[in-house]
Each structure stands twice: as structure tokens, then as C-alpha cells.
């Protein structure tokens, strides 16, 4: 357990050890912006459409759709999250989707 924690911390620290000279290259700057967007996009997909190693469509999809609508009407950040959770819980409570 401790070993796993140390490995996970080392992983986080690794990125901070990249020389600053590299970070100033235009291509590197572009990549540093793209990385979080690409990874978070992947997580949106995984956390909405998969459970373990199976692809699954359930109430979370309705939650994400709610988030999209709230973002389109420029709702505040916390309203988007709470709205998505609330609607997802509601759809489940009504038994429309698992």
C-alpha cells in the first residue's frame, strides 16, 4: 500500500522535473494545453459510458445531457454539477434507467 502510494507520488512529481527550457517551446506549450483537455475528455467518456470494463448506457447519460444543456445556458459551475447529479438521481429513483 505504501509502495503504491510512493509510486503514485513519484508519477506526479515526474512532470515537474521537466526542464523549463522545454516548456517554453511553442509545440510544448500547445501540448501542455492539449493534454488536460484530451485526458479529461477521455474521462468524461469513461465515467459516463463505461462500468468497469463494459460499455454501459444508464442514467449517467441523462446527467451528462443535463450538464450540456446547463452549460449552453451558461449556468454557474456548481449548478451544472448539482443539476447533473440531481437529474441522474431522479431518473434512477423513477426507475426509468439503471
Amino acid at each position: 500500500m505504501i509502495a503504491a502510494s510512493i509510486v503514485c507520488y513519484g508519477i506526479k512529481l515526474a512532470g515537474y522535473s521537466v526542464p523549463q527550457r522545454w516548456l517554453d517551446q511553442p509545440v510544448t506549450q500547445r501540448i501542455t494545453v492539449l493534454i488536460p483537455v484530451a485526458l479529461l475528455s477521455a474521462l468524461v467518456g469513461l465515467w459516463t459510458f463505461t462500468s468497469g470494463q463494459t460499455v454501459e448506457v444508464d442514467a449517467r447519460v441523462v446527467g451528462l445531457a443535463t450538464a450540456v444543456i446547463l452549460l449552453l445556458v451558461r449556468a454557474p459551475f456548481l449548478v451544472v454539477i448539482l443539476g447533473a447529479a440531481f437529474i441522474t438521481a431522479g431518473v434512477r429513483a423513477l426507475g426509468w434507467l439503471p
Partner: protein
Amino acid sequence: MSDELNEVQRRSIRRDAIGLGIGTGAYALSFGALSVSAGLSIWQTQALSLLMFTGASQFALIAILGAGGGAVVAIATAALIGSRNAFYSVTMASVLRPRGWRRLAAAQLTIDESTGMAVGHDETNAGARLAFWSTGVAIFICWNIGTLIGAVGAGLLDDPAVLGLDAAGPAAFLALIWPRLTSWPMRAVFVVSLVTAVAFTPFLPPGIPVLIAGAAGVAIGLLLALPELRRGTGGDAA
């Protein structure tokens, strides 16, 4: 790039950070409960939240240990899932340029949410910094309190799905990258990454699909930005 934040902006960033903290804290309740029911002690559970502090890896670790998987498999899976943090930390290194103890602290606080908040507020460097640190600290505190409550009162909230909390994560991530999705290249990155991650999930071990999807997204993004980079106008990284 102007580097000033007014009080209203500061307050709004802090409010969002605390909100995210409370949301993840609720999720930590279920981590604490699951970990104890998987056979770990309260102290082991708490140590994971303090030391490992990367949610997805923690869930994977206890799931494998609970299912009787070996320590080596558990460690390897946790590391694989946590490996995206290395890429986040490259991004955050370029934003924060931390030195000394701040670098060590920044490393531990580098997770999906803190990086996402920084990216969502990077119109100014000061905004990105405040977003990263306030989110990281808020989540660290709430995540650990949530873990403790969940571990002690196991069964209190063992299924976050009842409250729809499993939809809160993707909604938060989408909200964080939303300001970026105004340009077509970035929308392409979003779609390619999302679809790739889901498509590879059934065939590859956990942790790998997200890395492949990240690489695919970055590749598409670079490809679409090539003409601009060639012209040498890559200065504006947005």
C-alpha cells in the same frame, strides 16, 4: 496576458473550488466505506487518501485487494491509472513553475480536478494558480474527511449512484473544459479522446484506454494546429 484578478474573480474561483471539494468529499464517503468492506483497516484506508490521493487509483487498489488479487497487480494497476497525473504535472509545471517545497506540494495536489480547474481559469496566470491551489487544498481536506467518515461509518453511503454522484464527475470535467471547446480543433480533440477511451475499454486493462485516448487527442490537436505552428504564431496557446 494580463495578470490581475479582482476580488469577484477570486471569490468565484474559491467558491467553485470548495464546491468541488464537497462533491469529491461525498465521493470519498463511498471510498472509505468500500475500502473497509474490502478488508482494509480504517488506518490503511486513511493512509491511502493521505498518501496516494488519486481517487481512481485508490478505488482500483482496494477493488483488486478486496477481490483477492495480489499486491503486485494492485500496485501496478494503481500506478497505471495514476500515470495520467504525470502528464497533468507537465502542464502544471508550465503554469506554476514551482520551486522547493511548493514543487513537492504541487505534485501531491496534481489530480484531475485541480488541473482541470487551472485549465478552466487560465485566461490569467494568477487565475490558473489560484484555481489549482485552492481546488487541490479543498479536495485534499474534503477527500480525507470524507474517507474517515466513510470508513468509520461504513455503509453510510456505500453507493454514490443513489445520489447521482457518479454523474457529477463527468459533468464537472465537461464544465471545466467547456471554455476550451469553442474552437473546432478543440471540439475534435474532445470527440476523438472521448470515443477512443470508450471504444478501447472492453479490450484493454483499466488505465490504458485513457492514455491511448489522451495520446490520440493530443495528436489530433497538434495535427490541426500544424499550419498555425508553421506560421510561427503558436504564442497564443489557446
